[in-house]
């Protein structure tokens, strides 16, 4: 019984929260940002050839920005692969052969 009341209160709070948030977003897009968007769209489309402001910015004006973003992701992936791989797997065949010969000559007792 107590649990059901608790769940009902949670749902009520969630509903109020959702309605409030929806109202804020609605006012934001219809009153403030929407007007700006509509006013600027025609002028902007002629210059950037895109209906989406953000895409035109990150692929045209600031393409070097997304390029270096791709660089960061590339560096991260390479670094993680480098850390995960064992040292022996990274070696080329000639070095691997040399390592095996070295190991067979210097047979360490353990």
């Amino acid at each position, binding site marked *: 019984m107590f649990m059901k009341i608790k769940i009902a209160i949670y749902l009520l709070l969630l509903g109020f929260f959702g309605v409030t948030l929806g109202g804020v977003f609605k006012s934001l897009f219809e009153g403030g940002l929407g007007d700006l968007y509509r006013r600027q769209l025609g002028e902007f489309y002629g210059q950037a050839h*895109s*209906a989406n402001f953000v895409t*035109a910015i*990150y692929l*045209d004006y600031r393409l070097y920005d997304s*390029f270096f973003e791709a660089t960061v992701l*590339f560096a991260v*992936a390479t670094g993680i*692969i480098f850390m*995960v791989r064992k040292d022996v797997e990274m070696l080329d065949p000639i070095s691997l052969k040399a390592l095996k010969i070295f190991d067979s000559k210097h047979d360490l007792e353990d």
Partner: protein
Amino acid sequence: MERSKILIIVSTLIYPFLLMFGTYLILNGDLSPGGGFQGGVLFATSFFIRYLLSSKDPFNLVLLARFEKLLYLLLLLIGSVSLLIHQRFFTNFLVGNPWIAPRFFLVLLNFIIGFKVTLGVISIISSFVEEGEL
């Protein structure tokens, strides 16, 4: 590795929608919110879901890194084509030509970035898979 039945059923349900939504985000990136990065991460998530379902080691890490390197170089090359045409680095080189609409530059770059991000995130995930069972 034991997997919950709920996880398997829900993953099976959302897997095709993830693929579809990733494609939509990449191809419509210049018209609506979205773009290469988000679509690429969605694609990588769908491959991770495939790993969760079938539980076998999916990808060759060396091949993934090599393809990602090639795509990175391609991005640099496409960015510097405008240096020859408009004398400016990293901008839209299709502006002012009478044949192709300039928006295809954005679509092409979104596609390349999406593919590259997919490969990068997949290689990160599968390196963790290779290290220990996830």
